[in-house]
Structure formats: C-alpha cells, structure tokens
C-alpha cells in the first residue's frame, strides 16, 4: 500500500531507509524514525482497536505516552508483548502488531453490540447486574466478562528476554528534555554537578521539536541538538533517551525504566531488553511538560478525532498528514498553530474557535494565511463510524449554554485543543501539595515535601522566554548549593509568538433530542452521562466517583481525562475545581513491564544458591538435591533405578546397621568469644550453661520473649572464653540478629562478641554403630573410645595434615560424630571419610534419610518447632531451668501455656502398619463426623521407620501426654484419606537413648 498521507518532504525521519512492517497481518511501509502510529497514519490507517466497554472503533488520539486508544499486541522475535502503545513503539524492520480487545477482528467486532446496548451498560453496571445469584459470579459472570473486557494477551511462556536493575546516585535528576530540562541540565552541568537527564521519547527536545521559535540565532530544534551534544560530551552528565522516570518514592528515590531494545528487531547479544534504574538524587527537577486537554463533544471518540498537538507532531516530526480535510476545534491559540502547519503544507483547515473575539500574533498569522476561522463555533458531534467523515457544527451562545445553526460539514479529521494540563504526576507522587491555578484552569505543584522543583509548562509556565529564564536560574542555583561552584551561563534571547487567553469551556452541550455519547475517559469508555449518573446516585467524593465510573483508572491513568472529569463534577455540583480536588497520583506514571520490575531475580536467580564445599562430589555421585533455605542439599543418592522412597530407606537402614555420612555444612554456626560468653548463653538458652566444662558440648533450646521456641542446637565450649554455637539451617541469620540485639541493646554490659562462621566450616556427620571405627581410621593417633571421647565430648585432631574439630553429637540417635574442617578442606575430608569408611560399608545419606532417622527417634526439628510451640509441646520441658531466668521464661507461666491438657508431641502409627499418613493430616476422635471435624492435633512429620519397617509419624496432639495408647483417626481431606491410628511415644526407637552413649 502506498503512503498516501506522507508529505514529500519534512520531518525528522530518515527517508533513505524504508521499513516494512505488518499490522493485523497486512504489510505496510514506513521509514526509520517512525513510530508504529506515524507509519500507520502515513498509510491512512486510523482504525486501530476497539474500546474497552462498548467495543467502539478507536484510532489514534495522541502521539506519545498520553495515548489512550492505540494499544497493540506486539510480536517481536517470537516473544509476545501485550499492551504496547503504538504512539511510543518505534518502527523496526519486520515489526508485527495486531489490535486488541476485538473478536474476530477489528473491522467486524462482535462485542460492538455492547455499543447498541449502551443504555444497559451505565456506570456501576457490573456491580448492579451480576450480583444474583451469588454463586454465578465466579463460575458464569466473571469468566465471560474477563473474556469480553481487557486488552492484550500476556504470554504464558517464559520470557527469554533479560532485564536488569541499576542503582545510581546523582546531584540532579532531570525528568524530561524539553526547554526547561535542557536549560536546567545545562546550567547545572556547568557548575560541575553530577546530572542525569532522562527523556522518555527517542528524540530529545520535547516541545522544541514542534514549535516555531528562535533561541539565540537558532531554531528551537537546532538549539536543543546543540545543548544535547554538549551535555553528552560532559563527563559529569548522563543523558538517557527512551527512559521514563515513572515513580517518585521516599527520600528522593526515583525509579526510571529504560527501554534499551524495544525499538530493535531483536535484543542484541549481552544487552538487556529493559533496565530499571533506582536513582537517589540530591535534587530533582521535574521538567515533564504538559499534555493537551481534549474538548468534549458527541462521538468525540471516533477515529480521526485527535489532539491538535498530536496532529502537529505527526506533521512536523514524521511528515504525516492525519487528514486532508482537517477541522480544528479549539478554545485557545494552540489549535491555530496546528492549522498554520496544515496550511503551510498545502492543506486547507477550518478552525472552530469557541471564543467570540480573540486576537494574538498567532491568530493574526492564521488570518494572514487566509485560514477559514469560525468564532463562537463548536463541534456538536463527529459523524462516521470507523472514521470521521463529517461533523455537525454549531454556533454557541455567549453564555455557552445554547447552540444554534447546526450544520454538517465534511472533514476527515478533527483536531481538538482544550488548552494544556501540566504533567504534575511526579510532583504529586513526591508529596507535593498541589494547588489549582485559575489562570490556566489546572493544578500545578506548590508546596514541596521532598527536594524537587517543577519547571516549565509542568509548572504552568507556557512561554518559552519565561521557561528558559527560570530553568537556567534554577539549574544554576540548585547545583551551586551542592557543588559550591558557579559558572553561570547567560540566558539566550528568545523569539516566540505571544498567545491570547484560553476559553474556560470544555464540554459542548447536547443538541435537543440527541443523546450522543460524549467521552471523558477514552480508554475506559467513561462518558459525561456516567459521571452525571454517579452524582445522581449520591457519589460525592472525587475518589468515589472515580472508582464507581472508572474515570482515570485505565492504563493511561487519566492523562487526558482527569481535568475534564473534575470540571464536569464541579459544574454539576456548582463548585469550583479546587473544592472538588484531584484524585491521588500514584506510580507508575506509565505502565512498566513486569519483567523490568523483576529484573534478574527470576528462576534460580530469585534467591542466592549456596553450595557446600562437597557439592561437586555429591553431584558426581548421583545426588538428587533439595532446596533447604538458600542451600542446595543432597536429598538422596540415587543408585540404579531407585526412587526417593527406596533410596532414603536404604540410606537410613545403613546408618542403623553400619555407618553413614551426611553433609551438615549448612547448619548455622556462630563463633562466640568473650569473658561473659557463658553468661550470654545462660540467658539465651532455657537450660543451665555456667558449668559446662571446656571440651564439652550441650544441647540447648532458645525461646522468643513470647515463650515460643525459636531454635535449638548444640553449643560447644572450645576454650575458657570461646564457644561454638550451631543453629538450624533455616534460623541461622535470625539467631545471629537475636544475639546481637541482646548484646547491643539489652545487655551491653556483657563483654561478648558474636560472629557468623557458617561458611568457614565444612561439616560431616558420621553416624551408625560403626562410626567410631571410621573415626579411629581418620584420627589414628587419638583416643576416640567411649572414655576418651564420651557422648557430648569435643576434641581437636589432625586429619592427615588438616586441623579438625570433632564433636560427639548425634541427630540420628545413633552413635555419631560431627567433624568440622575449614571449608577449603571440606572435600578432602569428605573423600577421606568415604575412602576410609569403605571397609565398614559407609554410604552417604541425604536429608530424606536424615529425617527418617530423627523422626523415629522422636527428635523434634523445624516441623515441630514451627513458631507455634513452646518447650512443653515438644517434650523439651526437661530443659527448662527452674533456677535461673532466661529470654521468654516469664511467658511460660501464661495460663494457656500451663494448661493441663496442653498439646504435646507424640508418635503415631497406623493400625494396619501399612498406610503412610500424609503430613498435615488432622487427628480426630471420630472419622465420620461432619466437617469441620473437631481437631485434636496434626501430623507434623512422617517417615517409613526402617527399624520396624512400618510407617511412623510425629504429631502435635492436644493432651498428648495422656493420649499414649489411644486410638484416633488421621484425616487428610486433601488426599481424601481417613486412617485409623494408634498414639505411641514419640521416642519410637531406642527410647532410653542408649545408642548415642554406646
């Protein structure tokens, strides 16, 4: 298709590079430097999608971030990108896009029937209609509504693109590279400040690219180019295009999304698709400019109705005519600038000015060009379904209440201008108390909460001269305070045309007998009638009106709709706009892709992966790993075709019969030193610690102040004032913070230092009746007999030239030792144990076998110490010292904690000795009661007892102490199981603990 709407010359596109692309399956051509929007318009394509609620045909309304309609689904390098604004998407060779929110296609959309049923779809329709019967909501109504509504379709595939995060600090962050951004950045850079200048478009310059002004002796565009190239050459300045600062957070932290590769056919190697910048700025200059305000009239959503500034931008930047018979409808002078551009390019526009008399340099220029101007005229309604083909226009009375002389005139586009709305989103997000400026009928920033300054048209200053003057001043002043240097530059002279006042008129009344839809919010299909209805139904607060009607709630966040909505509410309520107030602006200013927010923290990068020094040995020996917090631990070592159950049974059995070795490097370790170390332990643990001799270990339980068990582990006295504490893998970090809290804040008088040594030590647990034989082989010179190294004993040894710590402690309930060496020697130790243990049939065992061993011994672990249990519940009440105080002791006297029928850990065996009990099952007295069946307790851990060859579980059971021997049922509604069980002692194997002492 030829480009019928492209001018022969002009614009900033590269006419030497033609680009082909497809939209809805059809091929078109554009040029390098086009956006998808400008290229489609050049081809005369105006119908781009369907509206959210009524499925009305929609085209282009803007030319940038404010675009409410032109949202497309992109296919780029086999990746789907939903909800891309065509006005922001730069064209690249082979770009594929299609319409959203229409089925089967954009030209024939079945959902458009909603348009004719429009009177059944007023504001609050969904709330009112789909209420009954209640059960229908989830099953019937919601799925249908969800299918009919909504925009693009997200991919269900993993996104192969890479996204990055970056942290940056600067003196000044400047958001927007229009005249105020450029001037302030330039002035600040001259003073040596570290400046970041961010521009959301690909081209720098903002309004200077489209306005007819002279700065110094250059055009606005040339001046912008010069300033940007100078800034780029300065080492203290970072200049970023395609970068949207979308959020202003606490303490001058701003977040910016940089679109690095979206404009390319595919992301370059080693480059991310997008980068999220977290910028901490000493000062922020908001130079985000302003967005043209629409005028409201009948069918003002018809494709071909667009902002006059957008029409001008398509002409001046892309050399594209949005129409060949344009109607310009304006309440201020900006519309004339667009009309003049049309005229200069050989197109005859008609200008309808709502004002009666107005005169200015711009209007005079239009008149001199013989442009047809109709004063006191309005557009009553646009005509045409998929594209404007004419307009009903009328004369409007001086009081703006009555229209007369309605006539229909032919046109193919209507360019509207309702004056300008400063973009105050970032200022408002920062906490700035905005104020209403009656002169421009819009809110502007007023009282700052954080270190931000808004300049230029974002601050309601619409003349270039004033903008440049204040921006150079502010840039100089703010940077000078930071750098203490001043290198002041002079403000260049400016030639610009003066404009006259705008008309305080935005909404054209309906002609008698007509009920045209007059849209305020174009993306969410909120019309004037919806606001009127909401107010009739009693909604008063603007926040409520917003939520009831969805005004300003779409992905464009009301960039074009907010003020017209507020104006309408105040007109109906007979208030002034500042009394109504505006709704809260929240980040993000424009949509940010989830990928950018997640960054690199995805998949296995979502948390760090910690591996023990023996990890690669485990890998080589067919270990199947499991996540244990951030650690990877062997779950079992697969032999042949074994499954988890078979392998863990074999490993556990081998520990009970011979000897096994388990990697226990992941246990938290804390090194404790100081003359008051024993006193600290005595206060932290529930049992007594003052008399622990050097060379001995002790098991301890620590509580939170509320009496709940926090963690358990063994601590060993290495020397007089030196202890080695172990914690569970999961609680290591919390326990360290806990100790630091008490040492630094509660008992600073204690002379103790604590430091994490988890990573410094590699650990191996050697367990089983033959473990002593293995240990003797490892340390032939040591006396490791039961007398030489008794249960809970500690000694240091030399493992073939490597220093080792030997602890006689046991988690498996067997005779066992833990050997620690410095991490770097971990693998050496491990291989030695395997090598020397061979003759005793040693096998490595993983966490699954480890669990089996501890469960059948009745050793409590994380599943019992679950943050809800006190020592008594875990059978640890014997470890509570009556003589001394400790953290959390006072809480143990609470009524509920000393109740006679308090829950307690018990063992559970299925009566049939065959059926495994799912973890999490409820214990109940009668399996046949209706749900919710009164719960007596729950199964905390289950295993297959290798000692007795039947299933065995631990449970936390109400009045557990007196329940031994009782018969109950274990119910698992999730797995649809009801298992008759018998309650037994939690110490299922070796209840007297003889093995560990053997």
């Amino acid at each position, binding site marked *: 298709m030829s480009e019928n709407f492209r001018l022969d010359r002009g614009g900033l596109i590269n006419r030497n590079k033609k680009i082909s692309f497809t939209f809805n399956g059809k091929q078109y051509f554009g040029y390098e430097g086009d956006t998808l929007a400008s290229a489609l318009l050049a081809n005369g394509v105006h119908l781009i999608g369907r509206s959210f609620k009524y499925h009305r045909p929609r085209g282009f309304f803007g030319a940038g971030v404010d675009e409410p309609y032109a949202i497309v689904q992109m296919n780029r390098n086999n990746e789907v990108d939903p909800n891309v604004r065509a006005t922001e998407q730069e064209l690249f060779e082979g770009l594929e896009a299609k319409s959203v929110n229409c089925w089967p296609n954009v030209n024939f959309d079945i959902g458009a029937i909603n348009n004719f049923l429009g009177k059944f779809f007023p504001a609050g329709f969904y709330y009112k209609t789909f209420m009954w019967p209640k059960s229908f909501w989830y099953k019937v109504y919601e799925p249908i509504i969800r299918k009919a509504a909504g925009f693009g379709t997200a991919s269900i595939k993993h996104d192969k693109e890479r996204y990055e995060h970056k*942290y940056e600090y600067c003196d000044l962050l400047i958001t927007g590279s229009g005249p105020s951004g450029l001037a302030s950045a330039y002035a600040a850079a001259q003073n040596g400040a570290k400046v970041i200048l961010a521009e959301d478009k690909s081209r720098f310059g903002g309004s200077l690219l489209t306005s007819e002004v002279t700065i110094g002796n250059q055009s606005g565009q040339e001046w912008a180019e010069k300033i940007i190239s100078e800034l780029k050459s300065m080492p203290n300045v970072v200049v970023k295009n395609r970068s949207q600062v979308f959020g202003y*957070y*606490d*303490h*001058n*932290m701003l977040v910016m999304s940089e679109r690095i590769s979206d404009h390319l056919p595919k992301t370059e190697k080693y480059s991310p698709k997008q980068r999220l910048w*977290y910028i*901490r700025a000493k000062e922020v200059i908001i130079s985000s400019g302003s967005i043209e305000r629409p005028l409201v009239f009948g069918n003002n959503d018809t494709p071909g109705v667009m902002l006059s500034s957008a029409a001008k931008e398509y002409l001046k930047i892309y050399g594209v005519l949005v129409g060949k018979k344009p109607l310009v409808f304006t309440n201020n002078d900006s519309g004339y600038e667009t009309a003049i551009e049309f005229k200069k390019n050989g197109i005859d526009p008609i200008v309808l000015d709502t004002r009666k008399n107005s005169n200015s340099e711009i209007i005079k220029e239009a008149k001199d060009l013989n442009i047809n101007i109709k004063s006191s005229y309005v557009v009553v309604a646009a005509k045409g379904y998929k594209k404007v083909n004419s307009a009903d226009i009328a004369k409007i009375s001086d009081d703006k209440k009555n229209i007369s002389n309605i006539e229909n005139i032919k046109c193919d586009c209507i360019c509207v201008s309702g004056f300008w709305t400063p973009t105050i989103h970032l200022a408002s997000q920062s*906490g700035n108390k905005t104020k209403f400026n009656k002169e421009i009928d819009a809110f502007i920033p007023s009282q700052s*909460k954080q270190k931000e300054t808004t300049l230029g048209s974002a601050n309601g200053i619409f003349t270039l001269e004033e903008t440049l003057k204040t921006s150079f001043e502010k840039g100089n002043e703010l940077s000078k305070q930071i750098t203490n240097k001043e290198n002041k530059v002079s403000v260049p002279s400016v030639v610009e045309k003066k404009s006259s006042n705008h008309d305080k008129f935005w909404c054209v009344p309906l002609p008698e007998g007509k009920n045209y839809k007059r849209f305020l919010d174009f993306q969410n299909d909120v019309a004037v009638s919806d606001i009127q209805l909401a107010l009739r139904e009693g909604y008063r607060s603007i926040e409520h009106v917003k939520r009831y009607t969805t005004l300003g709630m779409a992905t464009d966040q009301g960039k074009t709709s907010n003020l017209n909505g507020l104006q309408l509410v105040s007109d109906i309520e007979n208030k002034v706009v500042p009394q109504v107030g505006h709704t809260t602006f929240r980040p993000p200013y424009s949509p940010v892709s989830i990928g950018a927010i997640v960054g690199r923290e995805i998949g296995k990068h979502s948390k760090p992966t910690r591996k023990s020094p023996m990890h690669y040995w485990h890998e080589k020996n067919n270990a199947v790993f499991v996540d244990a917090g951030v650690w990877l631990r062997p779950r079992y070592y697969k032999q042949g075709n074994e499954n988890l159950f078979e392998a863990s049974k074999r490993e556990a059995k081998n520990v009970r019969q011979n000897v096994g070795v388990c990697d226990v490097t992941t246990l938290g370790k804390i090194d404790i030193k100081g003359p008051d170390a024993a006193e600290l332990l005595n*206060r932290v643990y529930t049992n007594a610690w003052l008399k622990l001799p050097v060379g001995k270990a002790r098991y301890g339980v620590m509580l939170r*102040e*509320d009496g709940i068990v926090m963690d358990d582990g063994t601590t060993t006295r290495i020397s007089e004032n030196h202890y080695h504490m172990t914690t569970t893998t999961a609680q290591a*970090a919390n326990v360290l*913070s806990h100790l*630091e*809290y008490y040492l*630094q*804040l*509660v008992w*600073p008088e204690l002379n103790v230092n604590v430091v994490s040594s988890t990573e410094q030590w590699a650990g191996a647990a050697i367990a089983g009746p033959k473990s002593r034989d293995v240990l003797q082989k490892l340390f032939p010179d040591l006396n490791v007999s039961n007398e030489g190294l008794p249960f809970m004993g500690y000694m240091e040894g030399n493992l073939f030239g490597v220093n080792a710590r030997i602890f006689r402690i046991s988690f498996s309930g067997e005779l066992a030792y833990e050997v620690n060496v410095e991490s770097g020697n971990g693998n050496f130790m491990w291989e030695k144990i395997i090598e020397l243990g061979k003759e005793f049939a040693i096998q490595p065992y993983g966490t699954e076998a480890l669990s089996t061993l501890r469960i059948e011994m009745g050793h409590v672990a994380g599943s019992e110490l679950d943050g809800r249990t006190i020592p008594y519940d875990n059978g640890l009440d014997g470890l509570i010292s009556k003589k*001394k*105080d*400790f953290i959390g002791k*006072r*809480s143990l006297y*609470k009524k509920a904690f000393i109740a006679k029928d308090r829950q307690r850990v018990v063992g559970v065996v299925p009566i049939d000795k065959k059926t495994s009990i799912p973890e999490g099952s409820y214990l109940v007295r009668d399996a046949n009661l209706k749900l919710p069946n009164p719960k007596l307790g729950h199964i905390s851990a289950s295993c297959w007892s290798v000692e007795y060859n039947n299933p065995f579980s631990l449970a936390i059971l109400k009045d557990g102490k007196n329940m031994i021997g009782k018969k109950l049922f274990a119910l698992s509604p999730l797995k649809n199981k009801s298992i008759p069980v018998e309650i037994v002692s939690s110490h299922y194997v070796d209840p007297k603990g003889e093995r560990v002492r053997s």
Partner: protein
Amino acid sequence: MLHIKCPHCGLRSQNEFSYGGDATVKRPELNKEVSDQDWDNFVYLRKSPRGKHLELWQHISGCRQWIKVERDTLTHEIFTTLKANEEI
C-alpha cells in the same frame, strides 16, 4: 525506599537494614518479679503513632549494628539516628 544514616557507616539505602520495632520498649530486668500486665505490655503491646516514632533498625548488610532512628511514620521524614547506646 528510605535513606537511613547509619551512625557508624553513613547514608545507606533501606534495603541494607531490617526493622526492629519500637526503640523505647525496655525489657524487664532478669530475675525480677514482673506482673502479668507488665509482661504482656512488654511482649505484645506497642503504640502505633501517627508522627514521630523512635524505632530500631539493624544494619544487617553493613556493620550489623542495631541503631535507633527517629522517623515520622506519616511522612517518613527521619529526624535523627543514634547508636544503640545513645539516648535521644
């Protein structure tokens, strides 16, 4: 994200710290009789003020020191930061 001035390290981002609650709470002394009411107040009851709040933070990814921060809970303004042993 807050910007917190660690009295030991200087200005650092909030993500280096972890929050520790009300800094004015005093733990009852060890081995002293404490009434149920006083103990419950210590363990469970905290004020949730709108405005100035003296609170604890730990610089976990830095010097690991617990510090006191006087912060406005409404505006997030930080008025002062103190070492663990300093009083406001």
